[in-house]
């Protein structure tokens, strides 16, 4: 009986060791860091009073997003950001979708390579969450990124300007609805 007890204990210890290895493997699994995004000022920018003022420091034509009401604030990149890297962020607090941010900036890849780059990211992506190309705004390819927790951001190009819609609680359905409506 005692010998059987020792054998059981030994087996349990082996199992324990196996579990510890499993723990090590789990450490290597794809658990992303859930960064605490500052949704009040996600671009670490400075507030401006109007679209006109925002446009003054941008290297592209800024558009006012439609259908989301009046922005709670408009943010532009800090002055030390090089001109070609600057962006505008329109922050909306909506009844339907909660907080919504619409970003505008120049893309970091040549516009002719924009879709190819996004399609490549989708092709190599293996989670967690989802990454896909969807057609928006009547046929434009958009990169739709949904985190494992369900928060969605949508990237697309119009002319030479990259748009990015995101928000702390945006679902994919809501995000696509917004993208198609602005």
């Amino acid at each position, binding site marked *: 009986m005692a010998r059987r007890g020792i054998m059981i204990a030994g087996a349990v210890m082996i199992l324990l060791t196996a*579990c510890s290895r499993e723990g090590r493997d*789990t450490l290597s699994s794809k658990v992303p860091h859930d960064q*605490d995004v*500052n949704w009040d000022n996600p671009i670490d920018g400075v507030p401006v009073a109007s679209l006109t003022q925002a446009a003054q420091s941008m290297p592209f034509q800024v558009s006012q997003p439609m259908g989301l009401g009046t922005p709670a604030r408009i943010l532009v*990149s800090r002055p030390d950001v*090089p001109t*070609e890297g600057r962006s505008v962020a329109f922050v909306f607090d909506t009844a339907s979708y909660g907080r919504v941010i619409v970003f505008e900036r120049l893309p970091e890849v040549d516009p002719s390579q924009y879709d190819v780059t996004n399609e490549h990211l989708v092709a190599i992506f293996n989670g967690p969450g989802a990454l896909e190309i969807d057609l928006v705004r009547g046929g434009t390819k958009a990169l739709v990124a949904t985190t494992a927790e369900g928060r969605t951001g949508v*990237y697309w190009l119009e002319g030479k300007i990259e748009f*990015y819609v995101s928000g702390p609680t945006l679902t994919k359905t809501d995000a696509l609805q917004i993208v198609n409506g602005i």
Partner: protein
Amino acid sequence: MNFLNKQSRRRLLATSVLTVLWWVVLGPGLALADCSTPEQNIFVSEVLQQGDGSAYGSLNNIYVFNHDLAGCHPYNFWATAHLKTFQGDKWAEVGYDDTLNGLNQEIWDVFLEAGINYDQATCGPTESYFINPNQYVLFKVTNKPNTTNFNLYVDYGSGWILLGSCDNSFSHGTAMGETGRKGETATGARDDHKGLQYKNSAGTWRSSSDIFVNQDTISNWHYFKCTHTRYVVLKDGTPNSC
């Protein structure tokens, strides 16, 4: 095999059972702090030298400390060399984790990660080498010229080791150092980044001309600037020193 007397066998059995119970009940879930809250970070940005508009790489010499750990899984503390877009939504990083394995033993892992959409990893996180604490370790993230691909390196004393590459949809932005933790105040956040460098558009590595804290959500620790290429993270109430 019959080398234990009856009493010893009973003791061994009881100890084993108690060990298993302790591990099952407390081991992996030993979380006195709230591990479900978002990670907390200090991001420190490098100011580039005159004439350099954007960083294409980030190199940090980071001291590997032994931290108090909350027991969050799989991450507790981490420190990285970081490159982000100017908007902060896309990134590539390489650094180390200080965390616990399945036996609640403290380990220090080199890891890399890249992603978009602020916190959605598209590459990694991938752990690789174990490293020893109480030493400086070099970490480097560098954009491959004319691509949106990044190489990520570590050097813990014997030269640069390529850990891997990550595709993304950006090439340049802000060079940073990151201090991060889970488990709120139960996880320590001591950190030391020195020799901060960035890679400019010509591919030359240069020292930062200044540094400033870009984001700080770690409640009981704070950033302290030592020089234009070095900073430390210290517990509130301790003297500011490097």
